[in-house]
């Protein structure tokens, strides 16, 4: 019997610590599939963040470096400068990248650092117990915005893909989602393109992936997927915000 579905070789055969219904597993799998397809696992060096994916260094079957909170792009910069023919990626959440690591991601992007960032945006701090993130939607309740995010007092969410797309350094910036099968297929395509661009030496690439947190959102996994479609997509439109090949997002 022909085998039609298997664990990607670039994903370590072990049980992950992610909550049931969390979409981190899907995103890990997409990266591993692309590593298999483009055959770069033997020269990949991944950088794990602080946040839910802190143990990410265990799951990918390639060299991994665990970074301090928000610093993954700086760590990846150091690695890439030493191993220029390596394929270096960071895997970061919204607290890590869009809050404490804002300076590092902006400057890695501005330098056109030839690395790939997978930015997982679920609008909440997961690992620390559901606190407000820089990407938490207006009105959403979290453990540090118990009355709902009040934009007068707590400011507005940051649209990372749009913000970074204003820079000249990046080669490819896209926002995708994994709340439905067609979107997962598109997400895989974007992740593949990002890595292809890095391998071709085109510069900084980032794929923002809208993700869920059923546990801290207080929703079932299916309700959580619905919330992505209903609440997040209007605030965080999907699409390619910069592509130096097609000219998307290029300066007029």
């Amino acid at each position, binding site marked *: 019997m022909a085998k039609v579905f298997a664990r990607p070789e670039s994903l370590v055969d072990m049980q992950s610590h992610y909550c049931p219904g969390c979409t981190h597993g899907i995103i890990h799998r997409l990266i591993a599939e692309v590593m298999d397809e483009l055959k770069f*696992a*033997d*020269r*990949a*060096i991944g*950088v794990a963040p602080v946040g839910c994916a*802190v*143990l990410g*260094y*265990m799951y990918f*079957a*390639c*060299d*991994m*470096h*665990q*970074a*301090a909170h928000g*610093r993954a792009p*700086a*760590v*990846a*910069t*150091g*690695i*890439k*400068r*030493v*191993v220029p023919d*390596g*394929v270096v990626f960071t895997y970061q959440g919204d607290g890590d990248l869009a809050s404490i690591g804002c*300076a*590092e991601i*902006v*400057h890695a992007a501005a330098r056109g650092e030839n690395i790939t960032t997978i930015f997982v945006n679920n609008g909440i701090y997961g690992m620390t117990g559901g606190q407000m993130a820089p990407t938490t939607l207006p009105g959403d309740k979290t453990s540090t915005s118990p009355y709902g995010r009040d934009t007068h007092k707590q400011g507005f969410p940051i649209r990372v893909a749009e913000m970074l797309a204003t820079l000249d350094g990046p080669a490819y910036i896209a926002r995708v989602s994994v709340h439905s099968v067609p979107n997962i297929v598109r997400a895989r395509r974007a992740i593949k393109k990002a890595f292809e661009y890095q391998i071709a030496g085109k510069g900084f690439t980032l794929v923002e992936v809208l993700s869920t947190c059923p546990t801290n959102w207080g929703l079932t996994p299916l309700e959580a997927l619905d919330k992505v479609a209903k609440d997040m997509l209007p605030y965080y439109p999907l699409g390619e915000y910069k592509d130096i090949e097609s000219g998307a997002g290029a300066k007029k």
Partner: protein
Amino acid sequence: MSERVLMKGNEAIAEAAIQAGCRFFFGYPITPQNELPEYMSRRMPQVEGTFLQAESEVAAINMVYGAAGAGARVMTSSSSPGISLKQEGISYLAGAELPAVIVNIVRGGPGLGSIQPSQGAYFQAVKGGGHGDYRLLVLAPANLQEAVDLVTEAFDLADLYRNPVLILGDGLLGQMMEPVEFRKLPSRELPPKTWATTGMRHHPHKNIINSLVLDAPGLEKHILHLQEKYARMNLHEQRAKSLHCADAEVVIVAYGSTARIAKTAVMSLRQSGLKVGLFRPVTLWPFPVNTLSELVPKVKAFLTVEMNAGQMVEDVKLAVNGARPVHFYGRMGGMVPTPEEISSECVRVLGGVR
């Protein structure tokens, strides 16, 4: 380069790093160490190395973290406020056991302080600075030739122990010029960096650079392993220099540029027939307890001189362990003690022991 050349301390330190095979430098401007990154920005392209001006000291030390993890000889430099920002990354480097050389050209603090020379970062350098049970090897040159030699050796020591090494200078050493010679030091046998994250094509198993150990017994085991390493460093790496200590009644204890000023004081006191010596720790961690405690039975009192409010004096007191009086004289805020001040303080202490 083997002839003697007149160089600024900051530039001599940078060239020494290049000569030691350092090919990666990540830094951020701050006075009084700016000549160091500036020199690196000129020199690194000539040796096919990488100079990168980071967006912050925090980013710079984390670039060092990545580059060190990938097995490179890597350096960063800064001055006090910038070194405070780097403490996060320094703790990670120590936890993940990565070799790197960090230069602190110390200026006055706390806060933004001043840009003048200070030794106010002693505690931060030798007692931690960042979080967790870790130690840095801390080397304190007193002249530029020693700075050059210690920087050269620092890269070997970092590789040998898989530990960050801190060069603790100050604005005086960074800004002054002295003749230096870049000489080959005897090279050590260093372990291969089989742990480096260079991609699995280079090694049979996946390499992970990490400082996270979530289970308590596992982290305790890791910390105990670090302590065992620090004990080895303490056993093998204590270094100090003595001057006129054999018959001294009072021994001045000073490091770095304060020690060279104290030396001028000792020489003039000796000319007046006073029995004064100088003990100069070269390693601040490990503190040279062994050689200092050997002096205790021969000496009547110690005088610690620092450009701070009294930091190393605590380690001197620990080494002397109450057996002799330990006096302190310090200037702060960028004020540099003069040989005359140190001499009169010494005479005061001598008067007390007679």
